[in-house]
């Protein structure tokens, strides 16, 4: 490439003046002149806070001082050296943590990557904790995260395509998939979606997901966020793709189904009967957390006939002197509960205990004894709050609160019928959702009965011979010998 061509595409040729102008008013920018082999002058430009000073000494300054080689290029003992020629390239290189070297005699520009690795140790996941099984989790370091996946899937067919998104954040994004296994359609869709993104700031993978999802106005997450490398490896193996985003420990997995949100890595560690039981409990508690309070409102507002007399006894007694109607009572209690939940997340962990005391005793006990709420409702609110936490995916927990409020309103108008209508609506919505253009409610709709082995129950691993049909993997069987 010569300069004319570059200019014609709107790029500026690199020059020391322009660079100095660019780095003006940046206290952490350094421009140093050094001599090489007595007579040759070398200019080093870098941003102090982005590079590793020890490695700078080791691989650039010291070899230059020693001057054993003829050219500067030969002298630098680093693998990541590349020649640059435009200002744009220089800017990208500087911000990635490169040192730019200028050799005036040859009028050559080099960039050497010696970024400082500002990272924390590999810790265990806090959002998806498990008792048994691998404990490591992703950190904010993209390369390290890729390493963790590659260790688990040592395949050359495991491809990692790199993109940059965000006009200001320049966030690196790596899309991983197994070539010859993952359906290429997904890869193409995801690639084109990432390329199309035009926005400034991407601080977390959820920002990326927001731009990649098919349905913006849905409460359900269409990309699974996880910080567990084993979850990613499993997803890659059954034919999904994983998108890693720089500076966040959360990777995106797609395409997912609604049921993936209920699966925990621990399911594959427990005995299959136990795992199936736990999984059923999880679905049940999700359902309960949605339905319990609306049911209370429906029964106590419209269908007193349905309540068994023994329960009616309790209910009548506890409701007989309350100031609010069941709907308002439930609404107020639920909002209070949400406030407590939210507060316990935002509060520093040391004051968490105070919160527990206030939330549990003051609000629970006192509302009953003050006659604001019935004991039955407090019990139900408690059960549904705890039940909502059984879902492994925290984002679902949040979205089901919203649905619960919807059901609450419906149940106060139409009772049980309202709740059923609500369920029909939610299921219709789920049925029409897609994740990476793939049906979200598979294997129920579209119906693949083979996939049922790993939906509500977790079948024995031995019998899960094929990869899920709804992912249309190019290699169907998980056994090596059987094709």
């Amino acid at each position, binding site marked *: 490439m010569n300069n004319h061509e570059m200019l014609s595409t709107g790029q500026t040729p690199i020059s020391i003046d322009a660079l100095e102008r660019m780095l003006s008013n940046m206290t952490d920018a350094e421009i140093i002149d050094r001599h090489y082999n007595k007579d040759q002058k070398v200019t080093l430009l870098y941003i102090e806070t982005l590079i590793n000073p020890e490695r700078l000494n080791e691989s650039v300054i010291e070899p230059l001082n020693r001057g054993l080689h003829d050219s500067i290029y030969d002298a630098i003992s680093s693998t990541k050296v590349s020649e640059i020629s435009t200002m744009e390239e220089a800017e990208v290189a500087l911000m990635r943590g490169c040192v730019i070297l200028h050799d005036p005699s040859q009028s050559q520009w080099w960039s050497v990557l010696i970024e400082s690795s500002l990272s924390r140790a590999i810790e265990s996941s806090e959002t998806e904790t498990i008792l048994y099984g691998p404990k490591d989790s992703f950190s904010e370091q993209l390369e390290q995260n890729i390493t963790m996946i590659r260790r688990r899937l040592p395949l050359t067919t495991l491809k990692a395509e790199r993109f940059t998104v965000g006009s200001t954040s320049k966030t690196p994004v790596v899309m991983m998939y197994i070539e010859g296994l993952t359906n290429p359609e997904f890869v193409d869709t995801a690639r084109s979606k990432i390329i199309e993104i035009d926005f400034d700031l991407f601080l977390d993978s959820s920002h990326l997901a927001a731009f990649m999802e098919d349905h913006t106005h849905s409460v359900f997450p269409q990309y699974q966020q996880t910080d567990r490398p084993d979850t990613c490896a499993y997803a890659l193996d059954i034919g999904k793709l994983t998108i890693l985003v720089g500076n966040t420990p959360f990777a995106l997995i797609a395409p997912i189904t609604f049921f993936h949100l209920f699966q925990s890595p621990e399911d594959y560690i427990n005995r299959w009967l136990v795992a199936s039981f736990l999984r059923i409990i999880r679905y049940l508690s999700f359902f309960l957390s949605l339905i319990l309070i609306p049911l209370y409102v429906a029964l106590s507002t419209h269908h007193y006939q*349905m309540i068994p007399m023994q329960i009616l006894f309790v209910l009548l007694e506890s409701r007989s002197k309350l100031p609010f109607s069941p709907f308002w009572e439930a609404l107020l209690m639920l909002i209070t509960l949400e406030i407590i939940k939210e507060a316990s997340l935002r509060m520093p962990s040391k004051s968490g205990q105070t919160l527990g005391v206030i939330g549990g005793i003051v609000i629970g006990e006192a509302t009953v004894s003050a006659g604001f709420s019935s004991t039955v409702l407090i019990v139900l609110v408690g059960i549904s709050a705890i039940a909502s936490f059984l879902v492994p995916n925290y984002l679902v927990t949040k979205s089901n609160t919203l649905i619960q409020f919807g059901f609450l309103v419906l149940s106060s108008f139409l009772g049980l019928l309202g709740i059923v209508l609500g369920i*029909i609506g939610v*299921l219709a919505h789920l049925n029409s959702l897609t994740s990476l253009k793939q049906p979200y409610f598979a294997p129920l709709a579209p119906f693949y009965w083979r996939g049922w082995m790993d939906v509500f129950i977790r079948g024995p691993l031995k019998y899960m011979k094929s990869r899920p049909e709804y992912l249309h993997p190019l290699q169907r069987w998980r056994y090596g010998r059987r094709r």
Partner: protein
Amino acid sequence: MKAISLYNKTSAFNGIYIVFLVNRLQMLYFVLLQATFLVYPHMIWAIVAVGALSQINLILVSKCFSSELLLKGYQGYVELFGKQGVRILAGIGLLFLIVKIIVTVLGYMEMVHYFVFPSMDSNWLILSVLLLGYYVAAKGMDNTIRYVSIVFLCTFWMIGLVFPFFFPPIASIYDLFPLVPTSWTFQSWKGVLLIWSSLSGPEYLLVLLPWLGKQQKSLKYLSIGNAISVAEYLLLFIAAILFFGSHYLDKSKFPVKSMIRYLQSPIFERIDILMVSLHIFLVVFAFSIFMLMFYGGLRIVMGRSLQPGKLTGFVISLIALTAVMIILNEWIWKGYTGTNMLLELQIWLGALTYLLVPSFFLLAIKRKERLKL
């Protein structure tokens, strides 16, 4: 104006969908009334016989399934009947369809009104179900067809609720006697007609062919669906006879739901309210899929089926249908004679479509093939 893509064909459906569709469309509404019309134990044989007859009819349906012309949708129809012919036929079809939609929705909502909210204005109930149906329909044909598997899973298990009726103290073998007809009246013929009419529904699958795609073993799946329905009919009817006895049965207005009313679960004492509500799943689904057919047919009649669909048209037809529904409910359904008239009409029309549509299509296809040769 925004174009809408209600009739996109993106996903392929496997054979199991035919089973679901056939079975659920046959379990729609009439099955809930059947027992009152059949009454006598010997009508068990009538169910079996009509089920077998329906199976023969399904052979015709499956023959149509393998026709390339129907797979092509509108283009295929034009090839079969010519442009004008299609418009006229679609117009006739719409009449049948709208009666089916109206009777199903109004009839079922009457049941909801009776069991769940006796004091509420039934128009509100109808409106809420219609709105939900529109929401489902607005998701497009693809999604609506796919929805049937969820509907099936959510409603199929309800047949299990009749099992307590097969055990003592409710069940007594003497309630099933005599098993042979001791007299055969006009009423019995009407019962047979009702069974046939409630088995109708698979003929509408012919219109869905472009979405269902080419099926290899369509007869197998159609038969499975039909067999499940007939088995469910038998279970329900025998349970009803055991529960009521044939002399008390004809005094019950909604026999199936009254039976469920008798059951108690430890958590809810009156599960009829729950089950009546849950059955709405099916009604909403059927309504939305018929609604899509209706709008598609309307576009053919208006001669617009090749232009991209517009939201305005869809919304206007929804509003019109709602208005018709409410007005009919107000003027006709609420009165006793009106209900009977509409019900009778739909029994005849349903029986007629199931009898004639498959053979009519088959004849047309055969004629076309002969002309080609």
